């Protein structure tokens, strides 16, 4: 109070002001000002102490996070190898460029610059823009891989003007045989936003990091993944890298070795050619799956950046469903291919091989007459197999009851799921009375037995099951298929058949090919090795719609063939299914060539080369040519791709299920079945039956 002299100056101002009072005031006020300065000094010092000492840790952290930029190095994926150690999926070093939408200042302009440098097509550009729009901002979007050095350098020098663009040297997944392994191996792609939300690992949003999206790539994800490396760099405020502080190398994922025989897989895929179908070959001693080819296919190499709209559109519009893995998800009526297996069921039920019936172009079951595809006269078990006589199976299936036959079908692998590292398998249907009651609430009828006894009706199997059935038939062991080379090989359980019985069926199946059977043209062109097999033809629409061998592609019969070789000491077994091939004649030449290749690759290639010349190149070449033609024709009006690639395959699966249901509806129609492309009953000796005799 006194310091400020309030009373004096306030109450009686003028009288008391003198040199002395002013000096006093000056001294007092100087003290106040000095104290104020000192006070501010103290405040500053304590503030600084607070920031620098009390809060030190926090600011050190912030300063470090300013200074140091940690970037992850995506790990190289483990290779997927075939049984001999050759790569089915490997990594290729390349230059790539990604963009991070969040950091793009002007997405359009940036893309414009990139597109100039990289020469991107309009559709390609539209795909990228769409992905940028739909991605969460932090997700990197791949613009291109496989840049040449000049392009990479051109982008790198423009980086200061292109915020959010990340050019990198990295590794990308490479599938040397492309479409041949598409369905088997799957493909890789960047993690989706959902995956990142579930597991917010910064690795998932590191540009260039891919995870397995389908099939084996997805199944073995954990093994293949590896461990990311990391690079710590010092950066300036504007993001320029000053120096590397520390680099930890990535650790490559473990490789996975499959039982697949790479060349065989590729050969089979190529041999299927223009057809839509699948081929499975197994080692019937060990259960190793040597090949599971499904064609037409897609090229997994071009999927890793996300599926382009042109390619997607092309694959979607193809009625041969290149996106469906037909080995596991293609379900077909097995037709006559189940006949040898049914014979095993008859044998088990006490039917003697030489018990014969008379086929009078058909047979009366109950109070109805069911046609056979031909008049076979006296038919015993062997003849029933190599001539594929329907009447024999009508009769004995009815005699022992289909329930027993269905039990054997299950034992032989039909209607079963196998313990394989695959995303999903459709296990189909082996009909029996209980099943029909459950599903349709209808009693089992004699005609159901008739239909089912020749592999028609409600019967649905996938090609893998057929191959397993064939292996089990050939060996008499309960062969279990497997895909990994380092799997434990259990000892297979033996079916309770005498070797005589097994030899009998083997001989009959050999006669199909090498004797008076239905597939004479399937004989192997190799001295001393004979293949045994069984043809099958599965009808897809009722006879009133199509005769099964001409007319619109999708009304034609499926062609099937199961086989094993050598017939007397089976080593390999397999199945070929050609969708809408117009009969088994489409299937067994493929089986023949595949088996030829397996025993003698040179001869196999000799068979393939002229065919491919005729078809216009290998599977990869044709796919590429088709893509180019399609892209040219489609121009710029191509539908965009669904947001998530998983969705695409979900859609394909859903359609596969739909196809299965349609085939069941067909089975509900009461009809006389025809196996082996048996002629329609009205024209037993027409010209079509002549052709078919030649073919079958």
């Amino acid at each position, binding site marked *: 109070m006194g310091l400020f002299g309030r009373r004096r100056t306030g109450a009686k101002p*003028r009288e008391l002001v003198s040199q002395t009072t002013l000096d006093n005031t000056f001294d007092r006020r100087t003290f106040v000002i*000095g104290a104020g300065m000192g006070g501010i000094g103290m*405040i500053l010092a304590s503030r600084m102490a607070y920031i620098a000492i009390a809060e030190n840790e926090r600011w*050190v952290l912030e*300063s470090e996070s300013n200074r140091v930029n940690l970037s992850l190095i995506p790990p190289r994926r483990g290779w997927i190898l075939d049984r001999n150690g050759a790569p089915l999926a490997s990594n290729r070093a390349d230059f790539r460029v990604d963009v991070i939408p969040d950091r793009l200042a002007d997405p359009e302009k940036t893309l414009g610059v990139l597109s100039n440098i990289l020469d991107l097509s309009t559709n390609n550009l539209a795909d990228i823009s769409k992905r940028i729009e739909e991605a969460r901002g932090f997700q990197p979007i791949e613009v291109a891989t496989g840049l040449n050095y000049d392009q990479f350098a051109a982008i790198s020098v423009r980086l200061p003007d292109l915020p959010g663009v990340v050019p990198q040297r990295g590794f990308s997944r490479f599938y040397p045989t492309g479409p041949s392994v598409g369905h088997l191996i799957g493909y890789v792609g960047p993690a989706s936003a959902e995956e990142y939300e579930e597991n917010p690992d910064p690795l998932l949003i590191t540009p260039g990091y891919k995870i397995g999206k389908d099939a084996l790539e997805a199944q073995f994800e954990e093994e293949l993944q590896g461990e990311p490396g990391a690079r710590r760099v010092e*950066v300036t405020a504007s993001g320029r890298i000053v120096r590397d502080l520390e680099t930890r190398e990535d650790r490559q994922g473990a490789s996975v070795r499959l039982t697949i025989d790479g060349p065989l897989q590729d050969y089979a895929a190529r041999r299927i050619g223009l057809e839509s179908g699948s081929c499975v070959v197994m080692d019937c001693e060990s259960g190793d799956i040597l090949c599971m080819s499904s064609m037409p296919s897609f090229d997994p190499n071009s999927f890793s950046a996300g599926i382009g709209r042109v390619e997607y559109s092309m694959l979607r519009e193809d009625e041969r469903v290149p996106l469906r893995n037909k080995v596991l998800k293609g379900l077909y009526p097995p037709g006559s291919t189940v006949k040898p297996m049914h014979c095993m069921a008859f044998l088990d039920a006490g039917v003697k091989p030489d018990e014969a019936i008379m086929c009078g172009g058909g047979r009366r079951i109950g109070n109805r007459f069911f046609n056979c595809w031909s008049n076979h006269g006296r038919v015993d078990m062997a003849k029933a197999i190599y001539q594929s006589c329907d009447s024999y199976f009508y009769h004995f299936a009815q005699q022992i009851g289909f329930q027993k036959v269905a039990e054997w079908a299950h034992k032989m692998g039909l209607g079963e799921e196998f313990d394989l590292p695959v995303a999903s398998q459709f296990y189909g249907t082996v009909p029996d009375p209980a099943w029909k009651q459950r599903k349709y609430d209808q009693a089992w009828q004699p005609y159901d037995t008739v239909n089912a006894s020749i592999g028609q009706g409600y019967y649905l199997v996938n090609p893998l099951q057929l191959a397993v059935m064939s292996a089990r038939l050939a060996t008499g062991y309960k062969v279990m298929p497997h895909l990994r080379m380092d799997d434990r090989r259990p000892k297979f359980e033996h079916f309770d058949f005498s070797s005589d019985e097994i030899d009998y069926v083997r001989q009959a199946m050999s006669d199909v090919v090498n004797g008076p059977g239905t597939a004479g043209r399937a004989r192997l062109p190799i001295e001393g090795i004979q293949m045994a097999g069984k043809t099958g033809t599965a009808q897809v629409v009722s006879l009133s719609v199509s005769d099964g061998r001409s007319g619109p592609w999708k009304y034609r019969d499926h062609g099937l063939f199961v086989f094993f070789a050598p017939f007397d000491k089976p080593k390999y077994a397999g199945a070929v299914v050609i969708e809408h091939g117009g009969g088994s004649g489409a299937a067994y030449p493929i089986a023949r060539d595949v088996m030829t290749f397996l025993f003698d690759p040179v001869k196999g290639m000799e068979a393939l080369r002229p065919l491919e010349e005729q078809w216009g190149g290998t599977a990869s070449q044709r796919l590429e040519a088709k893509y180019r033609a399609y892209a040219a024709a489609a121009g710029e009006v191509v539908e965009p791709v669904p947001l998530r690639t998983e969705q695409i395959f979900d859609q394909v699966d859903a359609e596969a299920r739909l196809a299965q249901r349609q085939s069941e509806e067909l089975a509900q129609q009461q009809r006389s079945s025809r196996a082996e492309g048996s002629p329609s009953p009205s024209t037993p000796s027409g010209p079509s039956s002549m052709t078919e005799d030649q073919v079958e």
Partner: protein
Amino acid sequence: MSNIVPAPVARQPWMMLFPLFALIGFGALVLTSAAAGNFEAYAQSHLIRFAIFIVMAVVISRFGRDVVGLLAYPAYIAILLLVIAVEIVGQVGGGSQRWLELGPIRIQPSELMKPAVVLALAQYYGSLPVGMVPTWRALMPAAAIILLPMAFVLLQPDLGTSLAIAFGGFVVLFLAGLPLRWFVLSGIAAIALAPVAFFVGLQDYQQKRVLTFLDPENDPLGDGYQITQSKIAIGSGGMFGKGFNEGSQSHLNYLPEPHTDFVFATMAEEWGFAGGLFTIGAFGLILFWGLKVAKASTDRFAKLLAAGMTATIFFYVAINLLMVMGFAPVVGIPLPFISHGGSSMMTNMICIGVLMMVHRWNQKSPRTGLILS
């Protein structure tokens, strides 16, 4: 001690000179680091300027009481005219301009205005009859001396400098013994007018700075960026800092203006709290000496002059440090003797020179011979 040290040396105000040299030397170190270890970039010119200005300060200190009293008003008027001239040249040239080009030297008259206002006011109150001090009539010329240059400097627009002028002026008025209630009332008025001044008197970018100061987290990547980065630099220095030339905030360009406005943050990052205490302590010694010089003087003009000059230096130091520590909005006021920049160095060295001058007067007058320095 006075026996050993020769009298002309002992006479010098070492209490101020030691901290001053220390600050300049320290400043040269910090500026070397602010240029990423390059001595030539800032530190060299810093030292050269100081060498020039210390000579100037010594020259100023040789002036006699009478000459200074005589020159006070003419100097003030001349500088005021320069300020106006800058304004006119600026208007003609289009856009705001703060300096005049005189050959190789750029003079910023508004900088010179700070000591000039203090000088004119000290002269005014020094010669005012004692009885007139608390009257309204006597206040009017004083108010004009402060407000005229303020108005022109604000037009430039240069808020920081006009506030510095006002602060120096007010301290002189306060110490001249004006009634306290005037200050209280004008304080209340200032608070009431602050919002008006904010919206009418400030440019957009200045308004933004004030808003950012009030809520720096609001826009950490925009306007709050500077303050945040400054705090990171100071905070990460810790007790003894990261070491000379090791500051990442300044070297990697995270810190804005590491050699001028935010030089203290550059320093604190590398020298830590210890360096901060040293700097604040050195300024404290200089300012304390300044007030002591003022107090020791028997002459009213000299008292006010010395105190006003001290206040001017203090204003720089306080506002700059408050700013870098996030206590004041970002205004472009450098840290005396450490920041790189000729204008502020000149102003501050004029203040130092004037203080040395008063110190010399005190020593010559019989009564002040007792003062120990």
